[in-house]
């Protein structure tokens, strides 16, 4: 009887650990953006991105606070939050999607894999479907992911003030770079 209970406990522990080991997360992922401008290029970094990747069901999620984007200049940061992103009204952004091609690789084996990502991106209170490509790298049992894509500001109702409309690009380039930890 005791033996049976021990076997059962080991079985459940195995099931629990095998489920969790397919989940990877970070709470300090990095998302940055770049926009070419006539007077001065605009770039900012956010190193406080929460991301979860489940390699079993291929789900990928990102969550960030808009006011966490840090600019080289305080005035840029102020304009970004008040005039463009209205971060008081729309404080967060998210992505919820599926990674295609992720179940073909062995997470225990080093390698670099090209994947396709499809899902919904919410910025400035507007949700749009996006598809892009990215790379997942596995090195020494650690998983990291990178992706670069562009968005058009108008698609997310982000208005450029008329005084600078000719000096600021209508699209921005977003770079995602996350190093994940295995969930234990």
């Amino acid at each position, binding site marked *: 009887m005791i033996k049976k209970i021990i076997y059962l406990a080991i079985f459940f522990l195995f099931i629990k650990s095998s489920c969790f080991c397919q989940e990877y997360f970070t709470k300090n992922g990095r998302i940055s953006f770049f926009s070419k401008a006539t007077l001065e290029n605009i770039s900012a970094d956010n190193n*406080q991105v929460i991301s979860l990747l489940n390699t079993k069901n291929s789900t990928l999620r990102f969550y960030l606070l808009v006011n966490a984007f840090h600019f080289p200049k305080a005035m840029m940061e102020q304009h970004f939050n008040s005039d463009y992103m209205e971060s008081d009204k729309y404080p967060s952004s998210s992505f919820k999607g599926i990674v295609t091609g992720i179940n073909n690789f062995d997470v225990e084996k080093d390698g670099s894999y090209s994947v396709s990502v499809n899902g919904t991106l919410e910025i400035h209170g507007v949700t749009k479907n996006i598809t892009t490509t990215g790379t997942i790298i596995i090195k020494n049992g650690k998983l990291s992911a990178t992706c670069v894509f562009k968005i058009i500001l108008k698609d997310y109702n982000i208005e450029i003030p008329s005084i600078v409309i000719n000096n600021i690009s209508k699209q921005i380039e977003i770079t995602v770079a996350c190093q994940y930890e295995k969930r234990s």
Partner: protein
Amino acid sequence: MKKRSIKNILLFFGVFVVLASTTGYFLWNKPHTNILATEAIEISAITLYNTFITDSIKAKKTYVNKVLSVTGIVKSVSVNQQNQQIILLKTSEPDASVNCTMETNAIGIKIGGEVLIKGLCIGYINGETDMGLPGDVFLVRCYYST
């Protein structure tokens, strides 16, 4: 008389342009808030996290975009991809933390030790309820003191 008034107008216009461009230049290049020189709200990591969980409206109004001095027990110390030090402070929820991105890397931080961290609070990110991962309260541009 006419020549003098044109001269005065041009002089006034010149002074105006110089003043406007100087003001614009200084405003555009004004530095970020000096965290160390700003008076901070003192709070413990546990109370800060609990306030965001139980009364998010009050927490946002009181703490977001404000400089805080947070006391707490160190859960972990690591570095992010930019080689910035990340110090996690314990909260009432085992998988949640007050997540501090340091402006200058602190030396001699011990896991389990009590620290005081001063930084700018940017808010709380809800975790992923479907996957059972609670969120963190984030502080950026942080400084450490014992």
